[in-house]
């Protein structure tokens, strides 16, 4: 080929420069700084000490397990509820358009604003949620102050804020299913329930993969909502990796913070890559 391509590679260049300098370079550098005690000016090589620290301190370990719990909970709930809501909102309901709007709007709102609002609503004695529960005779829990509950309360708020996106993706997925499948099933005498399990669920598979992957990555990286609501507390009970990284950064332990970043990176890679491969293989099989 001697003629120059009408689609020159230099079109990549401006984006590549920014992307490399501000994203790829720091990511690679992180693997070095994670092995140092670092004050931004001088980095002293200390081998794997930071990682040892991360694995020795129970509250840093609990940060890792909380990250997993949080990601799996939010992702699972968003997938299930997103699909159910999407089915409900495409079934020709009264005020369907309005409902879609209402469910979706929280996706666009500031996470910090949502976090602060729900912190007030979840106050153990004065909050509207427990006041309402009291009216029907239930003694509401300390949503954010009970250590076993705090992480799940934040996950619930995450669900409230994010389920609209899952619903939207599923609505698009449902729209792409040809009505003929349902027609054929009906002729075969399938019940509504059978149609849901045999037609809808298999055929929205691409949407399911998108929802799971997106919400899993989002859940693993999650920071703003947790920080706005509990700051990882009470104690360390709702600390996730991202909040631990931020705390170590604030305390001036830059090397340790970066080691946390590397661990988060590896964790996401170890979960998402096999998952993606598995999804793709299943797709080929099907």
């Amino acid at each position, binding site marked *: 080929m001697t003629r120059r391509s009408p689609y020159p590679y230099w079109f990549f260049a401006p984006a590549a420069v920014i992307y490399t300098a501000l994203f790829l370079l720091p990511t690679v550098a992180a693997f070095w700084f994670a092995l140092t*005690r670092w*004050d*931004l000016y001088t980095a002293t090589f200390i081998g794997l000490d930071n990682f040892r*620290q991360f694995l*020795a*301190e*129970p*509250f840093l370990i609990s940060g890792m397990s909380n990250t997993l719990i949080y990601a799996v909970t939010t992702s699972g709930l968003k997938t299930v509820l997103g699909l159910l809501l999407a089915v409900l909102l495409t079934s020709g309901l009264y005020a369907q358009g309005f409902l879609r709007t209402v469910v979706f709007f929280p996706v666009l709102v500031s996470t910090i604003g949502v976090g602060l609002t729900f912190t007030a609503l979840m*106050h*153990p*004695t*004065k909050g509207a949620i427990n006041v309402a529960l009291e009216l029907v005779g239930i003694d509401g829990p*300390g949503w*954010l*102050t*009970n*250590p076993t509950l705090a992480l799940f309360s934040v996950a619930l708020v995450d669900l409230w804020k994010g389920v609209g996106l899952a619903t939207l993706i599923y609505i698009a997925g449902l729209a792409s299913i040809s009505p003929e499948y349902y027609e054929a099933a009906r002729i075969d005498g399938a019940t509504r329930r059978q149609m849901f399990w045999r037609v809808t669920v298999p055929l929205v598979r691409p949407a399911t993969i998108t929802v799971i992957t997106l919400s899993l990555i989002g859940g693993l990286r999650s920071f703003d909502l947790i920080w706005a609501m509990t*700051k*990882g*507390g*009470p*104690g*360390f*009970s709702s600390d996730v990796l991202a909040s631990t990284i931020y*705390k170590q*950064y*604030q*305390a*001036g*332990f830059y090397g*340790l913070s970066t080691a946390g970043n590397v661990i988060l990176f590896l964790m996401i890679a170890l979960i998402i890559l096999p998952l993606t491969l598995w999804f793709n293989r299943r797709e080929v099989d099907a």
Partner: protein
Amino acid sequence: MNRLIHSTALAGAMALVAGLAQAEVTLSVLIDNNPETVAMMEALTAAYTAANPDVTFEIEQRTGGAEGDNIVKTRLATGEMADVFNYNSGSLFQALNPQQTLADMSSLGGQGNVLDSFKQVVTSPDGAVRGVPFGPAMGGGIFYNIPIYQELGLTPPKTWAEFMANNEKIKAAGKVAVIQTYTDTWTSQLFILADYFNVQAEVPNFAADYTANKAKYASTPAAMRGFERLEEVFKAGVLNEDFGAATFDDGMRMVSTGEGAHYPMLTFGIGNVKQNYPDNLNDMGFFAQPGNDAAKNGLTVWMPAAIYVPEASANKEEALKFVDFVATVESCQTMISAAGASGPYLIKGCELPADVPQAVKDMLPYFQTEGMTAPALEFLSPIKGPALEQLTVEVGSGIRPAADAAALYDQDVEKQAKQLGLPNW
């Protein structure tokens, strides 16, 4: 390219605006959001502007506790600190890397007015004094509500056993015996930090051995006791229902208005009550955290916070002049009239007025008897781990046993000691 032109034009416009405003000097000030601090700083800056009309101030507030510590550290490390700021003296001051980040104040004339005991706790490893006192010295102990004590016929306890007995009687009367406020996580540390008088009464060498990595919380029974007491109070079921969601402000309101009987706190809380509930100021008394032995009852004392100027400040000269002004008897009196006399000031010749609040009257006798006070550990050792307050929230909420938390705190401290580059760690 468009973008670059855009932001360059913008920067130009902003510089122009800034230039117009800067016919005079405006010093930025960062302080914690305790009402007492705010009142003192507002009074001081107003007095300074009255004397120097070309200098004005812009005061910014921050939260306290570990998050406040972190805001200060991060802003110093990234060169974003205000021209003047207040912050703890002692170990937290040492963790700021003061030799590099803070301006040297050794040669200020005002240092002549400052008591030597204070200069020690704002002196960096190279021997330079880098702060002047801001506010009064404080006691760490327990506020109590006097009407509740009178109603139930109680007397301030001299031993821990008496304290717990009082708590039982208060609980039996259907009242909240001990207030805890874990939304402001730093408030959860008091039972441990304020127990230091009792620790050193038993183990006089603890601070030195602790700094040298020879003594640990977990392996020193006297030091462990603070953690155990926090756990004991939780297990006794005497806390306010919303202890996990309450704030420092709530705590001071509750103890002064009788919604609760005891609140372990530093005496700077008196300023908060003076601002928010002045009518209840004299309903609140104070006693030192009791130990095992009534004969060895004494108070753990905190040095005042200091005000500092970052080395990198663009207005360093003007800021240092203001600091010099703060270190005078006259400014000391300004602070007393703004925030009230909640404790002794460390400026020579600065006397407290006769009519101090009840809690201060309860505290002053400790200072007047030799051997009845001891400095808090953070003024004797440069190491304080950043995770203490999360650990104390855990112990105080029954999430983690005391022994476990003490061992974890020993680990946490190690990180800080290594970052400070101390020998033996």
